[in-house]
């Protein structure tokens, strides 16, 4: 079990001939991920990593039956690459690219609203269902199959948490790096909804950080939903250096939201078990899950 991807998921790589696209597609294939083709405009008809390369996502989807796509494209090309995948009806788009203009993401968000596509990222490490399918840049060797769902805004802290889970004997159902950008695709709430209905997931670990309101929204959802599974959370940034500010708009819009204490309190109020120290991911999960 697990969510969004499994061993049957057929995956395209947009930007497969680039250094990163090539490197991580190769690694994904080694892991057992069914990468079925690549998309690079102008390279249609070629082969790369022994896979067919197509000019458009539309063609690639028709020829390969792919339902997921991972993007390793430069920031200036990311918006159009995502739009192309959305328009082609790809169900799951995973955008690894860091540094996409925020206005581009606002446009993508508006387009996603009326589509059947889910977007993970951008600026994220990807998604893995251990033992089945790895999409992105995560160090697959640290993950083990199991029953904890993990959702994280950060990449490296995510790996740290997973390593601790494994040391305590907890494998993972699916791990999703939703990315640290201001305007992401899937949010904590979107992932929590899917984990709620997944029989392979017994508990969810949520790794948030200072800024934005994604953790507060998750807390609100969990409280309203009387969520049926234990949720464990860590919020990084209690001692983050202060933001530089200029003028008043950021403070007016924040109106006290976004700080770690606010997030932690909201999560506690929603019966979430809060990890106090980043060395206690494993220990705290052990206490929450019997």
């Amino acid at each position, binding site marked *: 079990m697990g969510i969004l991807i499994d061993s049957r998921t057929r995956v395209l790589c947009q930007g497969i001939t680039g250094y990163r696209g090539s490197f991580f597609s190769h690694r994904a294939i080694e892991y057992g991920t069914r990468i079925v083709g690549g998309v690079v405009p102008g390279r249609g008809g070629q082969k790369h990593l022994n896979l067919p390369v197509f000019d458009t996502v539309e063609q690639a989807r028709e020829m390969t039956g792919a339902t997921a796509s991972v993007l390793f494209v430069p920031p200036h090309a990311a918006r159009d690459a995502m739009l192309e995948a959305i328009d082609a009806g790809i169900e799951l788009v995973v955008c690894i690219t860091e540094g996409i*203009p925020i*206005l581009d993401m606002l446009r993508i968000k508006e387009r996603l609203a009326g589509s059947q596509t889910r977007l993970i990222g951008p600026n994220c490490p990807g998604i893995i269902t251990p033992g089945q399918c790895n999409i992105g840049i995560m160090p697959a060797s640290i993950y083990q199959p199991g029953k904890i769902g993990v959702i994280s805004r950060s990449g*490296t802290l995510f790996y*740290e948490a997973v390593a601790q889970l494994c040391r305590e004997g907890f494998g993972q159902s699916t791990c999703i790096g939703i990315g640290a950008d*201001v*305007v992401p695709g899937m949010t904590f709430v979107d992932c929590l909804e899917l984990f709620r209905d997944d029989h392979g997931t017994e508990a969810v670990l949520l790794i948030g950080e200072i800024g*934005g309101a994604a953790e507060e929204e998750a807390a609100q959802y969990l409280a309203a939903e009387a969520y049926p599974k234990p949720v464990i959370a*860590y919020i990084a940034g209690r001692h*983050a250096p202060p933001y530089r500010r200029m003028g008043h708009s950021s403070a*007016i819009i924040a109106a006290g939201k976004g700080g770690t204490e606010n997030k932690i309190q909201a999560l506690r109020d929603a019966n979430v078990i809060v990890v106090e120290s980043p060395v206690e991911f494993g220990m705290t999960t052990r206490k929450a899950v019997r």
Partner: protein
Amino acid sequence: MFVQEYQAKRLLSRYGFSFPPGDVAFSTAEASSVAERIAAEAWVVKAQILAGDRGRFGGIKMVSSVSAAVAETQALLGSILVTPQTGERGIKVDAVYIERSVKIERELYLAILLDRFQRKLVLLGSPLGGAGIESVLAEQPDTLQRLSMSIDNAPDDDELRRFASGMDLNDALLDQYVQICRGLHQSVNELDALSIELNPLAIVDGNRLACLDVKMEIDDNAMFRHEDYAEIRARNRFDDRKLRAQSGYNYIRLDGDIGLLVGGAGLALATMDLLKLHEMEPANFLDLPPIASRSDVADACQTVLESPSVKALFVNAVGGGLTHCDTIAEGLITAHKKARITCPVVVRFAGTKREHGLTLLRNSRMPFQFADTMGEAIEILLRNMRA
């Protein structure tokens, strides 16, 4: 990045905003010619720094002669301004903006920005404005109007008029206000701005809205489609805390004594939190991106060690992305070869190429101390700091 007032006013000049005549001056000679060129009875000389609250902390001067404008320019240039938004160290003034003084009848507040909480573009407006706007709004929150909008389609006239109706304006001013809102939506789109704050937006000459000050942030990620931003960025390289943000990693200097070299922002934040839990103080925030190269790591290491307060260095890395533990090890060794590292270095590696990274460090014969987990690393650091 934030842009200076004069840069913002130039960037926004195409969008129909009314600014009092003015220009930037980098020297007293330029100040004199700017003031002479702008026919006026009185001028305002404004320090150009990337921080607000200038008026209340000596950064804005009213003058009624060209010679007084020159004298105030001389006093401001090279001085350090400290306001609640500059940090304790303050910011050195390299330029002033000189503009015609206008008679203000009422100040309003109007901003357009990316709402990081709703993840939408939003207009914020209040019939009250000026320097104390935050405390004014804290006391009278009902005066704040909000309007969320699509990025591609500006709100229609009816929506904007409804938004503007809270601003206590007569018909002529209301029309201008709606036009200004349209201009803000268009300029955000075309300039890749994350926020544009007009404060004050002022009623002047009885029937005119003028933008007296502008605070503006543009999206660093959008530099590739704005050739003119490179020059703005080059000119604004003032902020030592973020000076190196362009070189492949984020660095912010802090006051503690444990230097930190950490892969990824989330782990970097968590590492700082962990130090604080054990009553140690980080000397910096630094996160290496998942694509950092050996030379990025070496450069980052040197940057951290440049701070004289560093008594120990904590390298905390989980290999992933394209930056593996061996790359970080090579970076550390390169940094040590360039300038010998004399303080204790505690290294904790996990993830991709951990073993290879550790082997490289062991073979280097440099005095590293190794930890398997973050918890162990903290214990070693504590021992070092007590010694």
